[in-house]
């Protein structure tokens, strides 16, 4: 079977990002594993962490290998995946449109849906490849380091990083379709991701804000829990469900609007108007 061209090109265009980010994750993973024995002694002296410190770590028990890796690796490395997801998500439609290449691409015998679906599929595969390379960091360190942790559990935790990245990809894809201006879409999404991460981290410590964390995707990611408890399926389902909804909305919106011509000013207002089902 022939590999669909847009899928192949999108994946090829990301090859250095995949390798670079994957190797970075693997290096962080291996480093964290190797420094664990040094930390272990220190942390074993704490029977209980001060509540404020514990809050920043989420639910993780830092005195255990699971808790340590949750704090040192799983709590923040999804942010790297999210950055890749936002770069690719805004690039898929908004990037091609603001650089003017969408005109020629859509003049080929492909449907607009095929363009979006092939690009999305390529980036989903890219994200899987990144975490797979990252997992190699555990594979090459855990068996040789003085740490007791299950490689299967780590695999589950690594895979659990994907839904939140997929969600931000879908949001970026949609934002780039709604406002076909890559810079604006990317800036908006990065602001949103940062705000969500910030809200999530402070809401763990402040009781008054505790309810807020349910509104942030990072709660459903649940960094600390996945390593000890496995994937909470309904949490992953929430993230992937919202992602699917936004991808569907992107397909619908992209299908019905005008493509902006090469490189010139993008009429953001007209594009937004085209997203309104009541406007004609």
């Amino acid at each position: 079977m022939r590999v669909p061209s847009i899928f192949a090109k999108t994946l090829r265009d990301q090859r250095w990002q995949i390798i670079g980010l994957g190797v970075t994750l693997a290096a962080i993973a291996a480093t964290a594993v190797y420094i664990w024995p040094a930390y272990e002694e220190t942390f074993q002296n704490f029977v209980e962490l001060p509540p404020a410190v514990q809050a920043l770590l989420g639910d993780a028990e830092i005195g255990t290998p699971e808790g340590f890796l949750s704090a040192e690796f799983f709590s923040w490395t999804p942010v790297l995946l999210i950055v890749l997801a936002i770069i690719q998500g805004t690039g898929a439609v908004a990037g091609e449109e603001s650089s003017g290449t969408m005109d020629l691409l859509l003049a080929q015998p492909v449907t607009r849906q095929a363009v979006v679906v092939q690009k999305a599929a390529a980036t989903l595969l890219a994200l899987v490849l990144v975490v797979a390379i990252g997992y190699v960091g555990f594979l090459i360190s855990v068996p040789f380091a003085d740490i007791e942790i299950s490689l299967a559990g780590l695999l589950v935790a690594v895979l659990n990083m994907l839904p939140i990245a997929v969600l931000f990809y879908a949001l970026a894809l949609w934002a780039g379709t709604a406002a076909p201006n890559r810079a604006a879409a990317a800036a908006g999404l990065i602001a949103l991701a940062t705000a969500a991460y910030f809200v999530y981290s402070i809401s763990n410590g402040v009781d008054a804000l505790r309810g807020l964390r349910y509104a942030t995707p990072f709660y459903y990611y649940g960094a600390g829990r996945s390593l000890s408890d496995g994937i909470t399926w309904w949490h992953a389902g929430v993230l992937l469900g919202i992602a699917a909804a936004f991808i569907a909305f992107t397909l619908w919106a992209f299908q019905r609007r005008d493509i902006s011509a090469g490189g010139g000013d993008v009429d953001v207002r007209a594009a937004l108007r085209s997203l309104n089902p009541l406007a004609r």
Partner: protein
Amino acid sequence: MEPDAPAIELSGLVKHYGDVRALRGIDLTVARGQIFGFLGPNGAGKTTAIRVMLDLIRPTAGAAHVLGLDCQRQSVEVRRRCGYLPGELRTYENMRAGDFLDYIDTFRPERRDAVYRDELARRMGLDLTRHIRALSKGNRQKVGLIQAFMHRPDLLILDEPTSGLDPLVQETVAELLEEAVAEGRTVFFSSHVLSEVERLAHAVAIVREGEIVAVEDVARLKARSVHVFEVTFGGAPPSFAGLDGVREMRRDGRTVRLQVGGAVDPLIKLLARHNVLELRTEQPSLEDVFLAYYSAQTPVAAGEEEVQRASA
């Protein structure tokens, strides 16, 4: 597809962008097997009409058919059979020209013809191993032209095809257009340059402010075309009142600006009898052509011109 359907059929095509009326109801039929020019000033709606045909934008009203196919409902099939050169050509900067053409080829694997593609590159003088980001505007345009031609489409839709090309390559493009038509294919191209349309096209539609103002054989358009001369005399300029088709536009001392419709021979003969220091000729602007067109169309305007000429 209907084999007998026209290459292009636009009916009542309207496109509004907010308050901007880019197309105000375009009706146009382009028969197959010819080179058809779409002539109009920048902003007249040429690109808008072309992008509707490729389903890149959706009309506010009206319909577009290409090769008998509905441009919206059968857009994939339309695009399979069309070669398109965008007016604002943008390609992937980080690719080599050849790799970019390979990529475009993957969308029509059944029509891939590497030999023809390389021949096109050779004839236009384009090095396919170079990165697109390193190419000049003219060389990029060649990449755009090759990707439009290389799969031998039934209909070529070219938005300002010769923009940025040097005269020699323009000549090659003219040959390629003729060859396409000789193979029974159809060429539709837009231009804002009258001389280009006169040189390349068999028939022309003139578009202005989102409306088609005329559809003509190029031969007839040429017969109606006007030339502008600016003549500086050594002595007092003569009167041009008696010359058929000559209209005096301005007289500034010894310099006279003249518009000539039809044959220029009588004017040349008259000038030969005087001491001419300088003679300059200009490409008539599209506005001149429109004026000429309208004045030929409407007897009232022609009458006014007679009066003007008599009083000059």
